[in-house]
């Protein structure tokens, strides 16, 4: 197991490197001369050139990359021109609401999807299965901003069960906090639920075909035990993978959802940065999100060992 952990952690390093390179590349695609922007329209060519020298903008690309990378490692992800604070600080400030939303959505998704997928696999071919599959089909065919808008129309405007938009921090009370997050979490979570349910069903079907399930039944076990104990533990690994991936998609989806519901999270941070051309914020945020995605996947991979003893005890490669 230890070897597996070490190997897995080490393999993240090249990926992180690629992530850094991609972001750096994006930075350099940005039009405009940063020095000229800083000095304003009245600067002379000499002044701009001097600032470029100081900022290291005339150095060869590789040197610039190394410098930039060094800064990243130390936590300096740039400076938000608009908000007048380091990008990292802005990110941390806005992280709270997005995390709440993402976690809420993820829990909703898992709680709905896994039982649904199991039921669909168990009752394969029946009306129950078809109904669940149709539902998931719609789930993956709708963009989350559209689902969000439709949910608002139905539950907030028409039925008036939930607030239309806005955000209440945790400090104002848990129930209040959650009330404002229900619709956004539903919008985000339903789509993820559709994906997770599909994978759950497929994985369960695969497992239910396996010989050891026949053995389990031949032992005289009840069908529920066979499914929930024998099948599920084996089916769980692909499901876990997709949950890890879906968390990353949730963060991305939050970008859109926060816009619809006016939630002051990372999503809004990015959108505002785009409109205000606050490039360093965009790049820094995208970098951080990619990093956390890699981290989440790493954690998920390491969790495989919990479920599959072949991973835990495999001495061979």
């Amino acid at each position, binding site marked *: 197991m230890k070897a597996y952990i070490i190997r897995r952690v080490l393999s993240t390093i090249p990926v992180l490197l690629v992530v850094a390179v991609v972001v750096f590349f994006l930075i350099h695609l940005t039009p405009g001369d940063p020095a000229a922007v800083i000095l304003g329209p009245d600067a002379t060519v000499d002044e701009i050139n001097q600032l470029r020298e100081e900022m290291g903008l005339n150095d060869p690309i590789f040197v610039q990359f190394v410098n930039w990378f060094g800064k990243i490692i130390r936590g300096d992800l740039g400076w938000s021109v608009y908000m007048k604070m380091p990008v990292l600080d802005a990110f941390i400030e806005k992280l709270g609401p997005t995390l709440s939303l993402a976690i809420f959505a993820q829990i909703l998704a898992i709680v709905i999807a896994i039982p649904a997928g199991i039921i669909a696999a168990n009752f394969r*071919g029946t009306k129950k299965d078809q109904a669940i599959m149709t539902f998931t089909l719609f789930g993956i065919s709708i963009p989350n901003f559209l689902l969000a808008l439709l949910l608002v129309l139905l539950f907030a405007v028409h039925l008036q069960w939930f607030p239309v938009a806005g955000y209440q921090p945790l400090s104002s009370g848990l129930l209040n906090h959650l009330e404002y997050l229900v619709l956004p979490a539903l919008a985000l979570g339903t789509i993820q639920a559709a994906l997770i349910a599909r994978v759950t069903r497929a994985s369960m079907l695969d497992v239910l075909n*396996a*010989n*050891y399930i*026949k*053995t*389990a*039944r*031949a*032992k*005289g*076990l*009840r069908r529920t035990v066979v499914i929930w104990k*024998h099948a599920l*533990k*084996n089916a769980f690994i692909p499901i876990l993978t997709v949950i890890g991936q879906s968390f990353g998609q949730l963060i991305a989806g939050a970008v859109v959802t926060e816009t619809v519901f006016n939630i002051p999270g990372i999503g809004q941070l990015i959108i505002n940065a785009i409109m205000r051309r606050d490039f360093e914020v965009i790049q820094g945020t995208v970098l951080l999100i990619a990093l956390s995605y890699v981290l989440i996947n790493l954690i998920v991979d390491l969790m495989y060992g919990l*479920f*599959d*003893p*072949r991973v835990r*005890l495999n001495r061979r490669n």
Partner: protein
Amino acid sequence: MKSDHLLQVTNLKITFKTEEGNLTAVNGVTFHVDHGEIVGLVGESGCGKSVTSESILGLLDKKRTRCEGEIRYKDRNLLELSEDRMREIRGNEISMIFQDPMSSLNPVFTIGDQIAEAIMIHQKVNRKEALNRAVEMLRLTGIPSPETRIREYPHQLSGGMRQRVMIALALSCRPSLLIADEPTTALDVTIQNQILELIKSLKEELNMGVLLITHDLGVVAETCSRVLVMYLGQIIEEADVESLFETPLHPYTQGLLKSVPQPDGDRGRRLHVIKGTVPSLDKIPQGCRFAPRCEYATDKCRQQDPELEAAGSSHRVRCWHYKEIMEGGTGRAAAYESN
């Protein structure tokens, strides 16, 4: 007479419901298994032997298959029992082991847990006691240091050991009937023998009846006292093992025996092959099912499906012309003249 047998299958008919219509995989199969005997069920892939064995334990998908006929086990018709009753029998009075031991054991549970689980459902004992019994079973099946083994996972064992674990699992509740579906097919030849010997000795010890399903005639010769030959969902010959090998009556059986390469035979001779291929279940030929591939087939064979008739004290065959074939063939007919 009927209630004397441990297992009596009468006129078993199994139909699959598919999108292409109903396919009859097993058509009117009748046989029995007694305590202390190993009955071999032989046939090529697709002849229905696995389906037959799975139907005994009710393991077939109820929604997609329909079973008709009778499967009498100790005076109960298994086809009529509720699922709850069947669960009491599975793993307890009738056990089954399958072909591929690697995929037949759950990879994420220890072998100790898997055996103990079977013991705990059928016998009212706690986990500790169940694990003790599991260790005993493993010892019985010849696995060294079973106390440590119970904490291991299937992938940590070799193929032969896994099959021993499967056997230990199946016999953990001391069943009266063991159904072994191709237990040695996936194993190395050297291990095959050990497993077969194990099955034989355990049968003696527990006085079990064993239904051994295989396509390997060598295995049959080694272990079985009686043999049933299946083709396309029907039993086409049934005999005790010596009679079957010495005087096979059905052309199919004869073909099977001829197809086994003889190491001390004429090396220059071509290998015998039964011409043609097994038809698919949706294209079952009219009349005798083997007729299209039989060198002795006549018009009668192609029009009428023969019944299984007696051809000796314990020999039955499903063929219109077995007598003529026998006389024309080996000439040992005199010693075998009816009843």
